[in-house]
Protein backbone atom coordinates (compact mmCIF):
# COMPACT_ATOMS: atom_id res chain seq x y z
CA UNK A 1 0.00 0.00 0.00
CA UNK A 2 2.82 2.38 0.94
CA UNK A 3 4.56 1.49 -2.29
CA UNK A 4 1.46 2.23 -4.32
CA UNK A 5 0.84 5.64 -2.84
CA UNK A 6 4.43 6.61 -3.37
CA UNK A 7 4.37 5.68 -7.07
CA UNK A 8 1.04 7.37 -7.51
CA UNK A 9 2.38 10.40 -5.68
CA UNK A 10 5.41 10.70 -7.89
CA UNK A 11 3.17 10.66 -10.95
CA UNK A 12 1.03 13.39 -9.54
CA UNK A 13 3.89 15.63 -8.59
CA UNK A 14 5.97 15.49 -11.74
CA UNK A 15 4.56 18.24 -13.92
CA UNK A 16 5.17 18.75 -17.59
CA UNK A 17 7.80 21.42 -16.95
CA UNK A 18 9.79 19.26 -14.60
CA UNK A 19 9.62 16.34 -16.97
CA UNK A 20 10.93 18.50 -19.81
CA UNK A 21 13.73 19.73 -17.57
CA UNK A 22 14.76 16.21 -16.62
CA UNK A 23 14.70 15.22 -20.30
CA UNK A 24 17.00 18.12 -21.14
CA UNK A 25 19.45 17.29 -18.38
CA UNK A 26 19.64 13.68 -19.53
CA UNK A 27 20.23 14.95 -23.06
CA UNK A 28 23.22 16.93 -21.89
CA UNK A 29 24.81 13.80 -20.51
CA UNK A 30 24.28 11.73 -23.64
CA UNK A 31 26.79 12.38 -26.42
CA UNK A 32 25.10 10.33 -29.11
CA UNK A 33 21.73 11.94 -28.45
CA UNK A 34 23.32 15.40 -28.63
CA UNK A 35 24.88 14.44 -31.95
CA UNK A 36 21.45 13.33 -33.18
CA UNK A 37 19.87 16.62 -32.13
CA UNK A 38 22.69 18.54 -33.79
CA UNK A 39 22.29 16.66 -37.10
CA UNK A 40 18.52 17.01 -37.17
CA UNK A 41 18.65 20.72 -36.30
CA UNK A 42 21.24 21.22 -39.06
CA UNK A 43 19.10 19.43 -41.67
CA UNK A 44 15.94 21.27 -40.65
CA UNK A 45 17.85 24.54 -40.84
CA UNK A 46 19.16 23.62 -44.31
CA UNK A 47 15.65 22.84 -45.49
CA UNK A 48 13.98 25.97 -44.12
CA UNK A 49 16.82 28.37 -44.94
CA UNK A 50 17.59 26.81 -48.35
CA UNK A 51 17.15 30.06 -50.33
CA UNK A 52 19.60 31.82 -48.01
CA UNK A 53 22.11 28.99 -47.66
CA UNK A 54 22.25 27.71 -51.23
CA UNK A 55 25.03 29.56 -53.07
CA UNK A 56 23.19 29.37 -56.42
CA UNK A 57 19.88 28.67 -58.11
CA UNK A 58 19.45 24.88 -57.98
CA UNK A 59 17.56 24.91 -61.31
CA UNK A 60 19.93 27.05 -63.34
CA UNK A 61 21.49 24.95 -66.09
CA UNK A 62 24.60 25.67 -68.09
CA UNK A 63 25.94 23.30 -70.70
CA UNK A 64 29.38 24.88 -70.57
CA UNK A 65 30.01 23.70 -67.02
CA UNK A 66 28.57 20.17 -66.84
CA UNK A 67 29.99 17.65 -64.37
CA UNK A 68 32.61 19.93 -62.85
CA UNK A 69 34.32 18.16 -59.91
CA UNK A 70 34.19 19.55 -56.35
CA UNK A 71 36.23 22.62 -55.54
CA UNK A 72 39.11 20.87 -53.80
CA UNK A 73 40.01 18.63 -56.73
CA UNK A 74 39.85 21.38 -59.36
CA UNK A 75 40.17 24.97 -58.19
CA UNK A 76 39.22 26.74 -61.41
CA UNK A 77 35.53 27.29 -60.69
CA UNK A 78 33.26 28.28 -57.86
CA UNK A 79 31.17 25.14 -57.25
CA UNK A 80 31.95 23.80 -53.79
CA UNK A 81 30.58 20.31 -54.51
CA UNK A 82 30.86 20.50 -58.30
CA UNK A 83 28.02 20.43 -60.83
CA UNK A 84 25.68 17.77 -62.23
CA UNK A 85 25.20 16.60 -65.82
CA UNK A 86 23.19 19.73 -66.66
CA UNK A 87 25.69 22.08 -65.10
CA UNK A 88 23.58 22.84 -62.01
CA UNK A 89 25.36 23.67 -58.76
CA UNK A 90 25.36 20.42 -56.82
CA UNK A 91 25.58 21.89 -53.32
CA UNK A 92 22.49 24.00 -53.97
CA UNK A 93 20.59 20.99 -55.29
CA UNK A 94 21.66 18.98 -52.26
CA UNK A 95 20.45 21.70 -49.86
CA UNK A 96 17.10 22.02 -51.64
CA UNK A 97 16.83 18.22 -51.75
CA UNK A 98 16.57 18.12 -47.96
CA UNK A 99 13.15 19.75 -48.26
CA UNK A 100 11.36 16.84 -49.94
CA UNK A 101 12.96 14.26 -47.64
CA UNK A 102 12.02 16.16 -44.50
CA UNK A 103 8.52 17.10 -45.61
CA UNK A 104 7.62 13.58 -46.71
CA UNK A 105 9.28 12.00 -43.68
CA UNK A 106 7.74 14.36 -41.13
CA UNK A 107 4.24 14.43 -42.60
CA UNK A 108 4.15 10.67 -43.12
CA UNK A 109 5.12 10.16 -39.48
CA UNK A 110 2.56 12.74 -38.28
CA UNK A 111 -0.32 11.57 -40.47
CA UNK A 112 0.18 7.90 -39.66
CA UNK A 113 0.74 8.83 -36.01
CA UNK A 114 -2.55 10.70 -35.84
CA UNK A 115 -4.52 7.90 -37.50
CA UNK A 116 -2.76 5.17 -35.52
CA UNK A 117 -3.27 7.03 -32.24
CA UNK A 118 -7.00 7.47 -32.77
CA UNK A 119 -7.55 3.91 -33.98
CA UNK A 120 -5.41 2.48 -31.19
CA UNK A 121 -7.17 4.52 -28.49
CA UNK A 122 -10.66 3.62 -29.65
CA UNK A 123 -10.02 -0.09 -30.24
CA UNK A 124 -8.00 -0.52 -27.07
CA UNK A 125 -10.40 1.40 -24.86
CA UNK A 126 -13.72 0.15 -26.21
CA UNK A 127 -12.71 -3.27 -27.54
CA UNK A 128 -15.53 -5.28 -29.08
CA UNK A 129 -16.29 -5.74 -32.75
CA UNK A 130 -14.51 -2.60 -33.96
CA UNK A 131 -11.39 -3.84 -32.24
CA UNK A 132 -11.63 -7.22 -33.95
CA UNK A 133 -12.13 -5.72 -37.39
CA UNK A 134 -9.33 -3.17 -37.00
CA UNK A 135 -6.86 -5.80 -35.89
CA UNK A 136 -7.72 -7.92 -38.94
CA UNK A 137 -7.17 -4.87 -41.15
CA UNK A 138 -3.84 -4.36 -39.41
CA UNK A 139 -2.88 -7.98 -40.13
CA UNK A 140 -3.78 -7.46 -43.76
CA UNK A 141 -1.72 -4.29 -44.05
CA UNK A 142 1.26 -5.98 -42.46
CA UNK A 143 0.99 -8.99 -44.79
CA UNK A 144 2.02 -6.91 -47.80
CA UNK A 145 5.61 -6.39 -48.83
CA UNK A 146 5.52 -2.65 -48.25
CA UNK A 147 7.94 -1.35 -50.89
CA UNK A 148 6.24 -3.41 -53.57
CA UNK A 149 2.77 -2.14 -52.71
CA UNK A 150 4.04 1.44 -52.52
CA UNK A 151 5.66 1.08 -55.94
CA UNK A 152 2.52 -0.33 -57.52
CA UNK A 153 0.22 2.27 -55.93
CA UNK A 154 2.39 5.22 -56.91
CA UNK A 155 2.82 3.86 -60.43
CA UNK A 156 -0.96 3.75 -60.82
CA UNK A 157 -1.96 6.96 -59.04
CA UNK A 158 1.02 8.97 -60.25
CA UNK A 159 3.79 10.41 -58.07
CA UNK A 160 3.34 13.62 -56.09
CA UNK A 161 4.18 14.92 -52.64
CA UNK A 162 0.71 14.11 -51.24
CA UNK A 163 0.59 10.63 -52.78
CA UNK A 164 4.01 9.84 -51.31
CA UNK A 165 2.97 10.95 -47.83
CA UNK A 166 -0.31 9.01 -47.92
CA UNK A 167 1.22 5.82 -49.34
CA UNK A 168 3.98 5.78 -46.75
CA UNK A 169 1.48 6.39 -43.94
CA UNK A 170 -0.58 3.42 -45.11
CA UNK A 171 1.86 1.04 -43.49
CA UNK A 172 3.11 2.87 -40.43
CA UNK A 173 -0.23 3.75 -38.81
CA UNK A 174 -0.61 0.06 -37.98
CA UNK A 175 2.54 0.11 -35.89
CA UNK A 176 1.26 3.05 -33.84
CA UNK A 177 -2.24 1.53 -33.60
CA UNK A 178 -0.98 -1.79 -32.27
CA UNK A 179 1.24 -0.30 -29.59
CA UNK A 180 -1.33 2.30 -28.53
CA UNK A 181 -4.07 -0.34 -28.42
CA UNK A 182 -1.97 -2.55 -26.15
CA UNK A 183 -1.28 0.35 -23.80
CA UNK A 184 -4.89 1.54 -23.80
CA UNK A 185 -6.06 -1.98 -23.02
CA UNK A 186 -3.75 -2.11 -20.04
CA UNK A 187 -4.68 1.35 -18.78
CA UNK A 188 -8.40 0.64 -19.12
CA UNK A 189 -8.09 -1.98 -16.39
CA UNK A 190 -6.18 0.29 -13.99
CA UNK A 191 -7.79 1.32 -10.74
CA UNK A 192 -7.54 5.04 -11.35
CA UNK A 193 -9.49 4.64 -14.58
CA UNK A 194 -12.16 2.67 -12.80
CA UNK A 195 -12.18 5.31 -10.10
CA UNK A 196 -12.61 8.06 -12.67
CA UNK A 197 -15.43 6.07 -14.18
CA UNK A 198 -17.09 5.54 -10.82
CA UNK A 199 -16.92 9.26 -10.15
CA UNK A 200 -18.99 9.79 -13.26
CA UNK A 201 -16.26 10.68 -15.72
CA UNK A 202 -17.40 10.33 -19.31
CA UNK A 203 -15.53 8.14 -21.80
CA UNK A 204 -14.25 11.21 -23.63
CA UNK A 205 -12.92 12.66 -20.41
CA UNK A 206 -11.27 9.41 -19.34
CA UNK A 207 -9.66 8.91 -22.75
CA UNK A 208 -8.37 12.48 -22.93
CA UNK A 209 -7.31 12.95 -19.32
CA UNK A 210 -6.11 9.47 -18.32
CA UNK A 211 -5.42 7.25 -21.32
CA UNK A 212 -4.01 9.73 -23.83
CA UNK A 213 -1.19 11.11 -21.65
CA UNK A 214 -0.07 7.57 -20.90
CA UNK A 215 0.18 6.49 -24.53
CA UNK A 216 2.00 9.58 -25.74
CA UNK A 217 5.45 8.22 -24.90
CA UNK A 218 5.26 5.25 -27.29
CA UNK A 219 3.76 7.49 -29.99
CA UNK A 220 6.67 9.92 -29.73
CA UNK A 221 9.16 7.06 -29.74
CA UNK A 222 7.66 5.38 -32.80
CA UNK A 223 7.53 8.72 -34.63
CA UNK A 224 11.19 9.44 -34.03
CA UNK A 225 12.31 5.89 -34.82
CA UNK A 226 10.33 5.74 -38.06
CA UNK A 227 11.30 9.19 -39.31
CA UNK A 228 14.61 7.74 -40.52
CA UNK A 229 12.96 4.74 -42.17
CA UNK A 230 10.52 7.03 -43.96
CA UNK A 231 13.37 9.15 -45.30
CA UNK A 232 15.16 6.04 -46.59
CA UNK A 233 11.99 4.75 -48.25
CA UNK A 234 11.21 8.13 -49.81
CA UNK A 235 14.70 8.34 -51.27
CA UNK A 236 14.42 4.75 -52.50
CA UNK A 237 11.19 5.57 -54.32
CA UNK A 238 12.75 8.73 -55.77
CA UNK A 239 15.74 6.64 -56.79
CA UNK A 240 13.40 4.40 -58.81
CA UNK A 241 11.80 7.44 -60.42
CA UNK A 242 8.60 7.20 -58.37
CA UNK A 243 9.24 10.11 -56.02
CA UNK A 244 8.48 13.80 -56.47
CA UNK A 245 9.10 14.29 -60.22
CA UNK A 246 12.09 16.27 -61.58
CA UNK A 247 13.34 18.96 -61.85
CA UNK A 248 12.62 19.24 -58.08
CA UNK A 249 15.80 17.99 -56.44
CA UNK A 250 15.38 14.97 -54.15
CA UNK A 251 18.24 13.05 -52.58
CA UNK A 252 17.11 9.78 -54.13
CA UNK A 253 16.70 11.41 -57.52
CA UNK A 254 20.17 12.98 -57.35
CA UNK A 255 21.56 9.56 -56.44
CA UNK A 256 19.97 7.90 -59.43
CA UNK A 257 21.38 10.60 -61.72
CA UNK A 258 24.77 9.83 -60.21
CA UNK A 259 24.43 6.17 -61.07
CA UNK A 260 24.98 6.85 -64.75
CA UNK A 261 28.14 8.85 -64.04
CA UNK A 262 29.98 6.45 -61.74
CA UNK A 263 32.96 6.37 -64.11
CA UNK A 264 33.48 10.09 -64.55
CA UNK A 265 31.69 11.91 -61.72
CA UNK A 266 31.88 10.13 -58.37
CA UNK A 267 30.51 13.09 -56.41
CA UNK A 268 27.04 12.97 -57.95
CA UNK A 269 26.26 9.59 -56.37
CA UNK A 270 28.33 10.05 -53.22
CA UNK A 271 27.02 13.24 -51.62
CA UNK A 272 23.27 12.57 -51.73
CA UNK A 273 23.90 9.16 -50.14
CA UNK A 274 25.96 10.78 -47.40
CA UNK A 275 23.19 13.32 -46.83
CA UNK A 276 20.59 10.55 -46.46
CA UNK A 277 22.83 8.46 -44.21
CA UNK A 278 23.65 11.29 -41.83
CA UNK A 279 20.08 12.55 -41.62
CA UNK A 280 18.75 9.07 -40.89
CA UNK A 281 21.57 8.46 -38.44
CA UNK A 282 20.66 11.65 -36.59
CA UNK A 283 16.99 10.69 -36.45
CA UNK A 284 17.85 7.19 -35.21
CA UNK A 285 20.18 8.48 -32.49
CA UNK A 286 17.44 10.80 -31.33
CA UNK A 287 14.85 8.02 -31.45
CA UNK A 288 17.07 5.61 -29.50
CA UNK A 289 17.63 8.19 -26.81
CA UNK A 290 13.94 9.04 -26.53
CA UNK A 291 13.14 5.35 -26.21
CA UNK A 292 15.74 4.78 -23.53
CA UNK A 293 14.51 7.77 -21.56
CA UNK A 294 10.76 7.39 -22.04
CA UNK A 295 10.09 3.68 -22.42
CA UNK A 296 12.92 1.14 -22.70
CA UNK A 297 10.42 -1.73 -23.13
CA UNK A 298 9.90 -0.74 -26.75
CA UNK A 299 13.36 -1.82 -27.84
CA UNK A 300 12.11 -4.25 -30.49
CA UNK A 301 10.70 -1.42 -32.60
Amino acid sequence: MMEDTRILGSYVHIGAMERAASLLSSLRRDWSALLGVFIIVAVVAAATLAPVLAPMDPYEQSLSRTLKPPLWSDGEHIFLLGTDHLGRDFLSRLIYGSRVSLIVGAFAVLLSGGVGLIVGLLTGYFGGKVDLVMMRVADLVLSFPFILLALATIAIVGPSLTVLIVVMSLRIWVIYARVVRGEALKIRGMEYVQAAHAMGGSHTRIICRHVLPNVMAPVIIIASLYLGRMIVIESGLSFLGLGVPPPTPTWGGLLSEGRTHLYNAWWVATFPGLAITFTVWGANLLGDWLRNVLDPRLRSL
Partner: protein
Amino acid sequence: MTGYAVRRMFHAILLIKCVLVVVFLLLHITGDPTAIIAGPDATADDIVRLRTLMGFDQPLWVQYGKFFLGAVQGDFGKSFEYGESALALVFEHLPASFELAISAFVLSVVIGVPLGCLAAFRENSLFDRSFIGTTVFVQAVPDFWLGIMMITFFSVHLGILPSFGRGSWTHFLMPAFAASTYHLARLGRLMRSQMLETLRQDFILTARAKGLPETMVVMGHALKNSAIPIVTVMGLDLGILLGGTVIVETVFAWPGAGRLVVQAIANRDFPVVQAVVFLLASVFVLINLAVDLIYAYLDPRIEYS
Protein backbone atom coordinates in the same frame (compact mmCIF):
# COMPACT_ATOMS: atom_id res chain seq x y z
CA MET B 1 -1.47 -27.15 -30.71
CA THR B 2 -3.10 -28.86 -33.73
CA GLY B 3 -6.20 -26.75 -33.28
CA TYR B 4 -4.08 -23.65 -33.13
CA ALA B 5 -2.16 -24.68 -36.25
CA VAL B 6 -5.36 -25.30 -38.20
CA ARG B 7 -6.78 -21.95 -37.08
CA ARG B 8 -3.62 -20.13 -38.10
CA MET B 9 -3.66 -21.83 -41.52
CA PHE B 10 -7.28 -20.88 -42.03
CA HIS B 11 -6.37 -17.33 -41.09
CA ALA B 12 -3.51 -17.35 -43.61
CA ILE B 13 -5.82 -18.49 -46.42
CA LEU B 14 -8.25 -15.71 -45.53
CA LEU B 15 -5.41 -13.19 -45.65
CA ILE B 16 -4.31 -14.41 -49.08
CA LYS B 17 -7.89 -13.96 -50.30
CA CYS B 18 -7.84 -10.37 -49.00
CA VAL B 19 -4.51 -9.85 -50.75
CA LEU B 20 -6.22 -10.89 -53.96
CA VAL B 21 -8.95 -8.27 -53.44
CA VAL B 22 -6.36 -5.55 -52.82
CA VAL B 23 -4.35 -6.58 -55.88
CA PHE B 24 -7.55 -6.37 -57.95
CA LEU B 25 -8.57 -2.99 -56.52
CA LEU B 26 -5.08 -1.61 -57.12
CA LEU B 27 -5.89 -1.01 -60.78
CA HIS B 28 -9.21 0.57 -59.88
CA ILE B 29 -8.00 3.15 -57.33
CA THR B 30 -8.25 6.03 -59.75
CA GLY B 31 -11.63 4.84 -61.03
CA ASP B 32 -10.50 4.40 -64.62
CA PRO B 33 -8.17 1.44 -65.18
CA THR B 34 -8.33 1.83 -68.97
CA ALA B 35 -6.59 5.19 -68.94
CA ILE B 36 -3.90 3.79 -66.65
CA ILE B 37 -3.18 0.82 -68.91
CA ALA B 38 -3.39 2.86 -72.09
CA GLY B 39 -0.95 5.47 -70.85
CA PRO B 40 -0.82 9.21 -71.52
CA ASP B 41 -0.35 8.91 -75.29
CA ALA B 42 -3.54 6.97 -76.03
CA THR B 43 -6.31 8.61 -78.09
CA ALA B 44 -9.92 8.67 -76.88
CA ASP B 45 -10.71 6.08 -79.56
CA ASP B 46 -8.02 3.71 -78.27
CA ILE B 47 -9.38 4.01 -74.77
CA VAL B 48 -12.93 3.14 -75.79
CA ARG B 49 -11.70 0.10 -77.71
CA LEU B 50 -9.42 -1.04 -74.91
CA ARG B 51 -12.22 -0.62 -72.36
CA THR B 52 -14.45 -3.18 -74.08
CA LEU B 53 -11.50 -5.42 -74.91
CA MET B 54 -10.38 -5.61 -71.27
CA GLY B 55 -13.95 -5.84 -69.96
CA PHE B 56 -13.61 -2.65 -67.89
CA ASP B 57 -17.10 -1.59 -69.02
CA GLN B 58 -18.67 -4.37 -66.95
CA PRO B 59 -19.79 -3.91 -63.34
CA LEU B 60 -16.98 -4.07 -60.80
CA TRP B 61 -18.22 -7.28 -59.15
CA VAL B 62 -18.37 -9.10 -62.50
CA GLN B 63 -14.80 -8.01 -63.19
CA TYR B 64 -13.73 -9.17 -59.76
CA GLY B 65 -15.45 -12.52 -60.26
CA LYS B 66 -13.53 -13.07 -63.46
CA PHE B 67 -10.28 -11.91 -61.88
CA PHE B 68 -10.80 -14.21 -58.90
CA LEU B 69 -11.66 -17.25 -61.02
CA GLY B 70 -8.60 -16.62 -63.15
CA ALA B 71 -6.33 -16.04 -60.17
CA VAL B 72 -7.24 -19.25 -58.34
CA GLN B 73 -6.34 -21.08 -61.54
CA GLY B 74 -3.03 -19.23 -61.69
CA ASP B 75 -4.14 -16.91 -64.47
CA PHE B 76 -3.42 -13.20 -64.02
CA GLY B 77 -3.66 -12.51 -67.73
CA LYS B 78 -0.89 -12.24 -70.27
CA SER B 79 2.02 -9.86 -69.94
CA PHE B 80 1.49 -6.95 -72.36
CA GLU B 81 5.22 -6.79 -72.91
CA TYR B 82 6.25 -10.42 -73.32
CA GLY B 83 2.99 -12.04 -74.41
CA GLU B 84 3.37 -14.96 -72.02
CA SER B 85 1.39 -15.71 -68.87
CA ALA B 86 2.18 -13.09 -66.23
CA LEU B 87 2.32 -15.64 -63.44
CA ALA B 88 4.72 -17.89 -65.38
CA LEU B 89 6.92 -14.88 -66.03
CA VAL B 90 7.04 -14.07 -62.33
CA PHE B 91 7.80 -17.69 -61.46
CA GLU B 92 10.76 -17.56 -63.85
CA HIS B 93 12.16 -14.58 -61.94
CA LEU B 94 11.40 -15.78 -58.41
CA PRO B 95 14.40 -18.14 -57.98
CA ALA B 96 16.86 -15.30 -58.57
CA SER B 97 15.05 -13.14 -55.99
CA PHE B 98 14.92 -15.94 -53.43
CA GLU B 99 18.58 -16.70 -53.99
CA LEU B 100 19.50 -13.10 -53.23
CA ALA B 101 17.08 -12.78 -50.30
CA ILE B 102 18.20 -16.03 -48.69
CA SER B 103 21.91 -15.25 -49.06
CA ALA B 104 21.33 -11.82 -47.54
CA PHE B 105 19.33 -13.46 -44.74
CA VAL B 106 22.00 -16.09 -44.05
CA LEU B 107 24.65 -13.39 -44.06
CA SER B 108 22.76 -11.28 -41.53
CA VAL B 109 22.15 -14.27 -39.22
CA VAL B 110 25.66 -15.72 -39.47
CA ILE B 111 27.31 -12.36 -38.76
CA GLY B 112 24.67 -10.57 -36.68
CA VAL B 113 23.82 -13.25 -34.12
CA PRO B 114 27.37 -14.18 -33.01
CA LEU B 115 28.48 -10.54 -32.89
CA GLY B 116 25.41 -9.60 -30.86
CA CYS B 117 26.06 -12.44 -28.40
CA LEU B 118 29.71 -11.51 -28.09
CA ALA B 119 28.80 -7.89 -27.37
CA ALA B 120 26.39 -9.04 -24.66
CA PHE B 121 28.99 -11.31 -23.02
CA ARG B 122 31.39 -8.38 -22.84
CA GLU B 123 28.87 -5.73 -21.80
CA ASN B 124 30.31 -2.19 -21.66
CA SER B 125 33.65 -3.31 -23.08
CA LEU B 126 35.24 -1.39 -25.93
CA PHE B 127 33.96 -4.05 -28.34
CA ASP B 128 30.43 -3.76 -27.00
CA ARG B 129 30.39 0.01 -27.30
CA SER B 130 31.84 0.08 -30.80
CA PHE B 131 29.35 -2.65 -31.74
CA ILE B 132 26.42 -0.49 -30.64
CA GLY B 133 27.86 2.60 -32.33
CA THR B 134 28.51 0.78 -35.59
CA THR B 135 25.13 -0.94 -35.76
CA VAL B 136 23.26 2.32 -35.17
CA PHE B 137 25.21 3.93 -37.99
CA VAL B 138 24.90 0.95 -40.35
CA GLN B 139 21.11 0.96 -39.90
CA ALA B 140 21.10 4.47 -41.35
CA VAL B 141 22.92 3.56 -44.57
CA PRO B 142 20.45 3.08 -47.45
CA ASP B 143 21.09 -0.28 -49.12
CA PHE B 144 20.92 1.10 -52.65
CA TRP B 145 23.52 3.76 -51.92
CA LEU B 146 25.79 1.20 -50.29
CA GLY B 147 25.41 -0.91 -53.44
CA ILE B 148 26.36 2.01 -55.68
CA MET B 149 29.35 2.87 -53.51
CA MET B 150 30.51 -0.75 -53.58
CA ILE B 151 30.19 -0.79 -57.38
CA THR B 152 32.23 2.42 -57.56
CA PHE B 153 34.95 0.97 -55.38
CA PHE B 154 35.14 -2.74 -56.26
CA SER B 155 34.06 -2.66 -59.91
CA VAL B 156 35.02 0.76 -61.24
CA HIS B 157 38.24 1.42 -59.28
CA LEU B 158 39.59 -2.00 -58.38
CA GLY B 159 37.87 -3.96 -61.12
CA ILE B 160 37.72 -7.13 -59.00
CA LEU B 161 33.95 -7.74 -58.75
CA PRO B 162 31.28 -7.81 -61.48
CA SER B 163 28.98 -4.80 -61.16
CA PHE B 164 25.79 -6.40 -62.48
CA GLY B 165 24.00 -9.61 -63.39
CA ARG B 166 23.86 -13.09 -61.94
CA GLY B 167 26.26 -15.94 -62.62
CA SER B 168 29.26 -17.02 -60.55
CA TRP B 169 29.49 -16.62 -56.78
CA THR B 170 31.34 -13.33 -57.20
CA HIS B 171 28.10 -11.84 -58.53
CA PHE B 172 26.53 -12.60 -55.17
CA LEU B 173 28.90 -10.79 -52.87
CA MET B 174 27.93 -7.16 -53.33
CA PRO B 175 24.14 -7.49 -53.76
CA ALA B 176 23.79 -9.93 -50.86
CA PHE B 177 25.92 -7.77 -48.58
CA ALA B 178 24.10 -4.57 -49.56
CA ALA B 179 20.71 -6.18 -48.95
CA SER B 180 21.77 -7.66 -45.62
CA THR B 181 23.39 -4.73 -43.79
CA TYR B 182 20.25 -3.19 -42.30
CA HIS B 183 18.91 -6.54 -41.12
CA LEU B 184 22.35 -7.60 -39.91
CA ALA B 185 22.70 -4.52 -37.73
CA ARG B 186 19.16 -4.74 -36.36
CA LEU B 187 19.38 -8.45 -35.65
CA GLY B 188 22.76 -7.96 -33.97
CA ARG B 189 21.38 -5.26 -31.67
CA LEU B 190 18.29 -7.27 -30.78
CA MET B 191 20.39 -10.36 -30.12
CA ARG B 192 22.58 -8.32 -27.80
CA SER B 193 19.75 -6.87 -25.75
CA GLN B 194 17.89 -10.18 -25.64
CA MET B 195 21.01 -12.01 -24.48
CA LEU B 196 21.65 -9.37 -21.80
CA GLU B 197 18.14 -9.85 -20.52
CA THR B 198 18.48 -13.64 -20.45
CA LEU B 199 21.84 -13.47 -18.66
CA ARG B 200 20.19 -11.52 -15.83
CA GLN B 201 17.62 -14.25 -15.18
CA ASP B 202 17.68 -16.39 -12.07
CA PHE B 203 18.18 -19.69 -13.84
CA ILE B 204 21.50 -18.45 -15.23
CA LEU B 205 22.58 -17.58 -11.71
CA THR B 206 21.52 -21.06 -10.59
CA ALA B 207 23.42 -22.69 -13.43
CA ARG B 208 26.54 -20.76 -12.53
CA ALA B 209 26.07 -21.39 -8.80
CA LYS B 210 25.93 -25.13 -9.28
CA GLY B 211 29.35 -24.93 -10.93
CA LEU B 212 28.39 -25.42 -14.57
CA PRO B 213 31.22 -24.41 -16.92
CA GLU B 214 30.56 -21.04 -18.59
CA THR B 215 30.33 -22.58 -22.08
CA MET B 216 27.54 -24.87 -20.84
CA VAL B 217 25.73 -21.95 -19.25
CA VAL B 218 25.92 -20.01 -22.48
CA MET B 219 25.22 -22.84 -24.92
CA GLY B 220 22.71 -24.80 -22.90
CA HIS B 221 20.80 -22.07 -21.11
CA ALA B 222 21.38 -18.55 -22.34
CA LEU B 223 21.35 -19.16 -26.08
CA LYS B 224 18.29 -21.40 -26.06
CA ASN B 225 16.24 -18.99 -24.00
CA SER B 226 17.22 -15.99 -26.11
CA ALA B 227 16.19 -17.82 -29.26
CA ILE B 228 12.42 -17.32 -29.12
CA PRO B 229 12.12 -13.55 -29.68
CA ILE B 230 14.99 -13.69 -32.15
CA VAL B 231 13.26 -16.35 -34.27
CA THR B 232 10.29 -14.01 -34.65
CA VAL B 233 12.48 -11.16 -35.81
CA MET B 234 14.38 -13.46 -38.17
CA GLY B 235 11.13 -14.62 -39.72
CA LEU B 236 10.00 -11.03 -40.25
CA ASP B 237 13.37 -10.18 -41.77
CA LEU B 238 13.21 -13.11 -44.16
CA GLY B 239 9.73 -12.05 -45.25
CA ILE B 240 10.84 -8.45 -45.75
CA LEU B 241 13.88 -9.57 -47.73
CA LEU B 242 11.87 -11.94 -49.93
CA GLY B 243 9.41 -9.18 -50.75
CA GLY B 244 11.71 -6.24 -50.69
CA THR B 245 15.04 -6.54 -52.46
CA VAL B 246 13.45 -4.49 -55.24
CA ILE B 247 15.86 -1.57 -55.11
CA VAL B 248 19.01 -3.64 -54.61
CA GLU B 249 17.98 -5.83 -57.56
CA THR B 250 17.58 -2.70 -59.67
CA VAL B 251 20.99 -1.34 -58.65
CA PHE B 252 22.80 -4.57 -59.54
CA ALA B 253 20.58 -5.47 -62.54
CA TRP B 254 19.82 -8.70 -60.69
CA PRO B 255 17.29 -10.63 -62.80
CA GLY B 256 14.77 -11.17 -60.00
CA ALA B 257 11.09 -10.45 -59.44
CA GLY B 258 11.86 -7.04 -57.91
CA ARG B 259 13.60 -5.80 -61.03
CA LEU B 260 10.85 -7.38 -63.11
CA VAL B 261 8.22 -5.35 -61.28
CA VAL B 262 10.15 -2.09 -61.67
CA GLN B 263 10.44 -2.74 -65.41
CA ALA B 264 6.80 -3.79 -65.62
CA ILE B 265 5.78 -0.50 -63.97
CA ALA B 266 7.86 1.46 -66.45
CA ASN B 267 6.21 -0.48 -69.32
CA ARG B 268 2.66 -0.23 -67.87
CA ASP B 269 2.62 -4.02 -67.86
CA PHE B 270 0.02 -4.32 -65.08
CA PRO B 271 -0.79 -8.06 -65.18
CA VAL B 272 2.85 -8.65 -64.25
CA VAL B 273 2.70 -6.03 -61.48
CA GLN B 274 -0.41 -7.70 -60.02
CA ALA B 275 1.10 -11.17 -60.26
CA VAL B 276 4.33 -10.10 -58.50
CA VAL B 277 2.52 -8.27 -55.70
CA PHE B 278 0.17 -11.22 -55.19
CA LEU B 279 2.88 -13.86 -55.19
CA LEU B 280 5.30 -12.02 -52.92
CA ALA B 281 2.52 -11.05 -50.51
CA SER B 282 1.46 -14.71 -50.38
CA VAL B 283 5.03 -15.79 -49.67
CA PHE B 284 5.13 -13.18 -46.93
CA VAL B 285 1.90 -14.53 -45.39
CA LEU B 286 3.18 -18.12 -45.54
CA ILE B 287 6.45 -17.20 -43.87
CA ASN B 288 4.61 -15.43 -41.08
CA LEU B 289 2.49 -18.55 -40.68
CA ALA B 290 5.64 -20.68 -40.45
CA VAL B 291 7.11 -18.29 -37.87
CA ASP B 292 3.96 -18.46 -35.75
CA LEU B 293 3.96 -22.24 -35.84
CA ILE B 294 7.68 -22.47 -34.98
CA TYR B 295 7.12 -19.95 -32.21
CA ALA B 296 4.27 -22.02 -30.77
CA TYR B 297 6.47 -25.11 -30.93
CA LEU B 298 9.40 -23.39 -29.21
CA ASP B 299 7.33 -21.78 -26.49
CA PRO B 300 4.44 -24.00 -25.39
CA ARG B 301 3.27 -21.34 -22.94
CA ILE B 302 1.74 -19.27 -25.75
CA GLU B 303 -1.96 -18.77 -25.43
CA TYR B 304 -3.73 -20.32 -28.36
CA SER B 305 -6.85 -18.23 -28.26
